[in-house]
């Protein structure tokens, strides 16, 4: 799940209030996340020492809290960004989130996408090898995964080719 990393990524750029985190994470994740989930995730991240309270302004309600990332949090976020996601079908949302967060943090999104491409093709190579001399059921099951991974890979290539345009849009 990308929500904790999206929050870490946004905080990596500077401290933010809960409602700011909610708005920015919606954009980065590509779909809205419930306020409740944002606050429970912030609570877990704080407990784990990835973020801490920067300030608590007077008044009532969770929106008074301003959070900042810790050194542990930065390390955790960057490790997650650089590590290719296990190639399984339908990863686009996670890959999109990672790409946008990397661009916004000025981290090498192009290198992450190249690494992801290599991981995807490596998995496709394994599945292709499994098809050689296989029975038809095995071959068709491998094909199912191969077609989906191929769709991911095409998306990775397309995004890699349009990275500069995306950078301009998401870092405005």
């Amino acid at each position, binding site marked *: 799940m990308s929500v904790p990393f999206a929050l870490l990524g946004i905080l990596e750029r500077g401290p933010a209030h809960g409602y700011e985190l909610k708005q920015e994470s919606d954009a980065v994740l590509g779909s809205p996340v419930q306020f409740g989930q944002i606050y429970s995730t912030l609570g877990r991240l704080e407990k784990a020492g990835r973020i801490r309270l920067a300030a608590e302004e007077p008044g009532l309600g969770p929106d008074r809290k301003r959070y900042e990332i810790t050194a542990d949090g930065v390390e955790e976020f960057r490790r997650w960004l650089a590590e290719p996601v296990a190639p399984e079908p339908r990863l686009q949302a996670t890959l999109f989130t990672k790409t946008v967060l990397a661009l916004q943090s000025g981290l090498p999104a192009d290198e992450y996408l*190249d*690494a992801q491409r*290599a*991981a995807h*093709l490596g998995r*496709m190579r394994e599945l292709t090898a499994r098809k050689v001399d296989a029975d038809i059921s095995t071959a068709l099951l491998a094909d199912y995964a191969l077609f989906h991974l191929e769709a991911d890979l*095409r998306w990775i290539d397309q995004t890699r080719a349009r990275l500069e345009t995306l950078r301009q849009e998401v870092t405005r």
Partner: protein
Amino acid sequence: MNEPVITAHGLVKHFGPTAALRGVSIDIQPGEVVAVVGASGSGKSTLLLCLAGVLRPDEGEVHFRGTRIDDASEAERSRLRRRDFGFVFQFGQLVPELPAIENIALPLLLDGVSRREAMTRAAEWSGRLGVDDVGAKVPGELSGGQQQRVAIARALITGPEVVFADEPTGALDSLAGEEVMLLLAGLARSEATAVVIVTHEPRVAAYASREVLLRDGAVVTRAGVA
């Protein structure tokens, strides 16, 4: 590690003001299947043609089994292409007037092998590629998949060291493409022939043992991309 069958170093190639290759270096090991991938215009086909001695690079060197070939005479390179290299293209590579079996035998006939010997070996190869039942038909009467099988038989009949394939499945539907790749990769393995495949299709690239990713005429080097 074996001696590479092909070594290319610092290849640069321009077409007018456009740089198609900007210093590409690559080794091809005996019997390995290498996929050359990249966006349109990244230099994939130019690299293939330089490695195969069809195009001369503006800079850099290409060696085949330790002998420099990029500066060899046209006659020498032509002999090399006929005897030591095989070619499979996307389409339009078969002689339209000749029956399939004679298309397969053609490289041997051009190289002075007796007609009888050439036809015997062509019959054997058409069997291995599953096109023996259409040997008497001309290319226009064959399906796309059958034409590519004939092309593969023709590419392999001389026992080449390297087969160069440029989008070999590009004109085929996905199932026919799959069958062609299974045959090509399987035969390359059993014949210990190296194969260099240019493709924009990830599923075709996945048949290779490694991938060379080109971007703007240069190889993208990364730990993850072998």
